[in-house]
């Protein structure tokens, strides 16, 4: 949708490449990419943040490598090569998280490995990194990664707050607060994301009207 805006402008500046991923082209709220981890691990703010950062790291590294190799990879096998590059970095991340915190590794589970099939990363490699210089691809990846982390955090914070009465395990609500268990369950993920999309849509339509 909003991708057309970028192409209609001539030569977007470097800051623009960075900023667009955070708000205007936010991967989760606007482009609706990479939904699976967004819904699955956003049950607490901590998990959401860790998952977001892991994805951002893989995105950054794969964008850099794809951009460096963009003149060497033959067109016919490009998707396969991108996936191999992504899978390599995901394996690195997987082992790194396991080394840093076993607890975190357990709560994220198979979803770290599943970063491989996050459509966001492949789509950035195909749509941006394969056509742009290393510097720009890095900025693009950083912006998109931060935007993704931000969106995940928005979801995770709301779900943890309502479902557990806390944020980052610090109790926010008084002890007699009745937890909304449904927010931690799968259904809560769908509802929270739908609510966020509604809010964003509302803001966008207001903007267009004024």
């Amino acid at each position, binding site marked *: 949708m909003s991708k057309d805006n970028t192409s209609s402008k001539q030569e977007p500046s470097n800051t623009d490449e960075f900023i667009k991923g955070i708000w205007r082209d936010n991967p989760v709220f606007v482009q609706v990419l990479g*939904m699976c981890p967004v819904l699955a691990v956003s049950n607490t703010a901590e998990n959401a943040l860790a998952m977001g950062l892991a994805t951002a790291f893989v995105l950054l590294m794969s964008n850099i490598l794809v951009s460096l190799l963009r003149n060497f990879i033959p067109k016919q096998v490009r998707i*396969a090569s991108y996936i191999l590059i992504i899978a390599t970095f995901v*394996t690195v991340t997987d082992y790194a998280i396991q080394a840093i915190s076993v607890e975190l590794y357990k709560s994220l589970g198979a979803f770290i*490995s599943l970063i491989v099939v*996050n459509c966001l990363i492949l789509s950035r490699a195909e749509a941006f990194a394969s056509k742009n210089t290393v510097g720009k691809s890095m900025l693009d990846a950083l912006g998109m990664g931060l935007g993704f982390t931000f969106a995940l955090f928005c979801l995770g914070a709301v779900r943890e707050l309502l479902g557990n009465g806390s944020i980052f395990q610090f109790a926010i609500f008084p002890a007699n607060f009745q937890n909304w268990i449904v927010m931690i369950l799968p259904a809560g993920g769908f509802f929270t994301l739908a609510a966020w*999309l509604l809010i964003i849509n509302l803001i966008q*339509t207001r903007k267009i009207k004024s």
Partner: protein
Amino acid sequence: MNTESLGTIFLNAVLVNNFVLAYFLGICPFLGVSGKIETASKMGSAVTFVMLISSMCAYGIHAFLVAIDAPYLQLISYIVVIASTVQLVEMFIKKMSPALFRSLGIFLPLITTNCAILGVALFQTNKGYGFLESVIYALGAGVGFTLALLLISGLREKLNFAEVPNVSKGTALTLFLAGILSLCFMGFAGLGA
């Protein structure tokens, strides 16, 4: 190993731990191709087929990787197998039914990045399933995926005739529907235990 019976594994994968509604795997095609019942059912069968093949291959690969003591290659080799299976299915469908090929469009190659398929391969390895159990598990996951896709596309076809506020059109509405479906599927919890 585990003591689950084959029937339990199947039922678990279809209803209790439905891949779409409980594990959030394969959400992209779930939101993308669920507009029409017809496309949804074909997409479902294509995904089920790829799941079955890749699950069998994943079983073999896992045994091989354990034998040569190189577990870090697991992810890379799984994804290569899935990508080539999808390529195979794509060529097959293109040859047999060009109309279907056109209606599935971009979502056919995107089966490669369908997390549900990689998810099946990874979960069966984690759970230590044997060959037969893996196949049943993959079949159940595929049927569950198709079921969820059919349900949501039926609901969306009906909703085309309903009047909804402009802001909630599109993805937001589909997500609300998915949430309600997910609540319904929670009723199955404890069925396979």
